[in-house]
Structure formats: structure tokens, C-alpha cells
């Protein structure tokens, strides 16, 4: 990350691209988030870290309508999108890549990407999206007719990320993109995140791999038991003795 980029703005602007305000959310009767706030500005990579069960996935699910928000507000691009279902968010430019490398197992790689472009009606734009994703992941281009269910974990994660990119999103929500992958695929995931960031895509990334995430994050939030614990720039949290003790093994 050498010079050339515009000066980084350390604090959130008045109107970030995505803002999660004091959100309480859960599943049925189960309350998981007890007032969580976070913000992502255009073009920023924001990390979300915390122990298992802290509610990291639930934040992404609250944003995408998979978890029920009982209080608080979620705003995107000036609109209130609290409780809006994922399929309505896609046309607004929000892509969600859930935890667990989920793919349509009985469909080919190409069909998976095609489903990612479901809301893209313009044939030219679809074509362009396919070449962009195949350029980013040449391995998928070689295997476009393979059934996604028969691929390795790392390859499936590429399919899942590629599928999210097909709509040319402005904001991508990624849940544990490197979890359970072989080291070379972990490296590939982080390289990909960096190159997407360089292209101006805003991302909210949930990760177990705290050190690598904080190293590339503009901002990060540390969550515990459904509440905000710490926040700051990636570098701040990386230097924070508490984060170091809890997550970086110091």
C-alpha cells in the first residue's frame, strides 16, 4: 500500500455508505446482538473480528435480512434498509458472501456465476461481468463446466466470491472468506480482497484471521458477546495490547 492514493480519512464521514446504528438482532426469541454499531465508507475495507459466537455473522445477517432486527437502524447509501430482504439489496449494489463457501452444488461454475448475475439484465454487462470474474480467478475459467459441488474448498470460495462480484457491487459483505482453506488459498483470498479494495469496492469482512485482516483493514471493530468492544483503524487495533493478547497470541 504505497503512495498515490488520496489521503485516508481516519474518522467516519457524516454519511457513510453503510451504517449500522445500535442494532439489536437475533433469531426468533434468541437475542444475539445487543446494540451494535459499525460503519463502512465508500471504498473502505472494514474488518469485523471477535471470538466465536460474538455475533459477527449475525451482523451480516441483520444487514441482509436473514436475522431479525428488533431495534436500531441500518442505512445504506442514504436509504433505510433495516429488515430489507437480501434479494432487494442486490439491485442496490450490496453483495453478500455467506460463511461456509456456499455454492449451488449441482450447478456448474458458470451457472453459479450466472445466478450471481441474476439481476443483471443487460447482455453486455453480463458478458463484461463474466470476463472480470474469470480474469480475477483464472482457475474458474478453466473449470467453468465443472459442477461446483465437486470442487475443492478454496475453489468453492472463489466461486462464492466471484458470484458476489457478478453484480458489480459497491459494497460486499464477506463472512469468513478464508476459514478452513489451505494456506495458499488463504493467501489468495487476502490478495483478492486487496485488489478489490484497490478497485474501489467497499467491504465489510468478518474474519477469524485477525492479524491478516487488521493489516489490510482501513477500520475494524472488535465484537464480544453481541456488543462493540473496541474499534479503530486496522493499525490501531493491531497495536492495541488487548487485541494482541486476545487474538494475536501475545
Amino acid at each position, binding site marked *: 500500500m504505497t503512495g498515490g492514493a488520496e489521503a485516508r480519512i481516519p474518522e467516519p464521514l457524516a454519511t457513510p455508505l453503510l451504517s449500522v446504528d445500535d442494532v439489536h438482532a437475533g433469531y426468533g426469541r434468541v437475542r444475539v446482538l445487543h446494540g451494535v454499531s459499525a460503519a463502512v465508507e465508500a471504498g473502505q475495507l472494514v474488518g469485523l473480528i471477535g471470538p466465536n459466537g460474538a455475533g459477527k455473522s449475525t451482523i451480516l445477517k441483520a444487514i*441482509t*435480512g*436473514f436475522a431479525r432486527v428488533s431495534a436500531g437502524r441500518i442505512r445504506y447509501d442514504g436509504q433505510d434498509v433495516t429488515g430489507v*430482504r*437480501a*434479494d432487494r439489496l*442486490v*439491485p442496490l449494489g450490496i*453483495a*453478500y*458472501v*455467506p460463511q461456509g463457501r*456456499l*455454492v*449451488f*452444488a*449441482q*450447478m456448474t461454475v458458470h*451457472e453459479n456465476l*450466472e*445466478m*450471481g448475475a*441474476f*439481476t443483471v439484465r443487460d447482455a453486455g454487462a453480463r458478458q463484461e461481468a463474466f470476463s472480470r470474474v474469470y480474469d480475477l480467478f483464472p482457475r474458474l475459467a478453466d473449470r467453468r463446466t465443472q459442477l461446483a459441488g465437486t470442487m475443492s474448498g478454496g475453489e468453492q470460495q472463489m466461486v462464492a466470491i466471484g*458470484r*458476489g462480484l457478478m*453484480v458489480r457491487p459497491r459494497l460486499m459483505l464477506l463472512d469468513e472468506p478464508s476459514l478452513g482453506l489451505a494456506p495458499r488459498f488463504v493467501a489468495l483470498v487476502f490478495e483478492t480482497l486487496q485488489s478489490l479494495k484497490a478497485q474501489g469496492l467497499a467491504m465489510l469482512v468478518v474474519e477469524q484471521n485477525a492479524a491478516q485482516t487488521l493489516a489490510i483493514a482501513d477500520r475494524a471493530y472488535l465484537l464480544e458477546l453481541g456488543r462493540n468492544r473496541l474499534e479503530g483503524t486496522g493499525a490501531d487495533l493491531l497495536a492495541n495490547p488487548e487485541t494482541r493478547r486476545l487474538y494475536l497470541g501475545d
Partner: protein
Amino acid sequence: MGTDLATAAQVVVSGLLLGGLYALLAGGLTLVFGVMRVINLAHGELLMLGAYVACLLFAATGLNPIVALLVSIPVLFVVGAVTQRFVVNRVVNAPLLTSLLLTYGLSLVVTGTAQAVWTNDYRSVPFITGGFALGEVSISRPRLLAFAVSLVLTGAAHVFLTRTRWGKAMRATAQNADVALACGIDIDRARMLAFGIASALAGAAGTLVSFLYSVYPEMGRAFMLKAFAVIVLGGLGSFPGALIGAMILGVVEAGAAYLSTTQIAEAVIYIMLLAMLLVRPHGLLGTAER
């Protein structure tokens, strides 16, 4: 020896002709299960409605049942889509027993209403009859016609599912509804469309049945069991599996009917089903659940 071969050929041909119709009927049942994990016990009643469309149109205007398909297909599509939207969609994520009870209840309501409106009288649509010989095998004209139309419609549904935007969206919804949502697919619409298409296929099967068998309010029950047997053989949620299962069922049924009585033929089907459930519960082409 020669006559034994001819008999075997006759059984196979009769069975395959029957199998085409079963495939058309079971395709819809398997589609609905695949897309919304609901076993629609009212599927046979949709066939019955399709048969009545043909009967009533014939009685009123003398309409040829093949032309009546142009009415029964869209009518049953709408019936299915509306039923899904307002009734079945409520139980999509409920336990299987809930949807079984609901669709069983629906089947009783539809049958009862049909009995009240159309009485229990047996009806039929006189249409082409007779047959022709192909070597030593005789082929019934109406059955051949029903078979051909069934294959065309089943094939059209398969092409729709594998080639079109909404067809693929329905398969995506079947494979992972949450990821389908994340792709921007309106899964409620995909499910409504799937139920509509399944109903249209069942309705078309009913219209074809109207010139082969008697039409009466409770006719759906026997066909429902056949469709159920087909998906047990072929695997729930698998369209090509349904086609293969239907052909096997048709041939076994024809063979058992030739060797014994119709009642014993039915029993043979159930024994085969039980064996299948014990040996390969996910069917020939189905994949084991999770």
C-alpha cells in the same frame, strides 16, 4: 419362443407408453419437492381437475382433448400458483408433517368440492380409439398419443428448468434458498412459479388421462400413488430420475398385470417400493439428503 419374445416386447411397449404419462405426473411432484421441500399430497387432485377441464369442455363444445390442453395447462398453472402463494407458501419452512397435513387437507377439500359440484358419476371423453400392429406388438393409438404429448411436455419442462433464467433460478432456490436470495432471486416468486408449472403438468396429465380412463372426483388418489412410486424409484427432486422411475414403474406394472391380475400388479408395485426404500432410499438418481 417367438411368442414369448413378442409377449415380452408387448409388455415393455405397453409399460413404456404408460410410463410417459407417469413421468409427466411425477415430474411436477418432484419439482415441488425439490424447490420447496413439500410433498404435495394434492397433486393427484390437480390431475383430476385437468381431466374435468377436458370433460366439461367436451360436454359443452365437443372440444378435442388435445386442444383442451391449451385450456387446462394455463388454468391449472393459475390454480397452482395461487394455491402456492396463499396457502402452501406458509408451510415451506415448516416441518414435513405440517405440509403433509396441509396438502392432504387440500386434497380432501378439492375432492369433496368436486363431488358436490360434479357428482360421483363416471365420465369419459370419447376420442380416438383402436390401434395398429408393429410386427407382433400391437400399439394403442390413444395411448401412443398420450405418451408422445407427455414426453413433449416433460421435455419442455426440463428445457425450461435447465436453460431459462427463471428455470435456473428455480433450481438455485432448490439447491440453496439463502444463497439464491443473496443472488437477488425472489424465492417466493420462484416457488410460486414452480408450483404453477407442477400443477400445469399435472393438469395436462389429467387431460390426457380423460380419454384413457374414467373421470371421477376420486380418480386422483390412484394416480398420486403412482407418482409417489415414481419418485421413490427415481429419487425425490430429480427430474431425469422421475423419467427413468416412470418407465420402470410402467413396465413393471404392465408385466405384473400380464402375469396376474390388476390387484396383484398393484401389490407388486408396493413390494418394489418397499424394497427400494430399504435398499436405496434416495432413489436411483437422487442424492442422499445432506
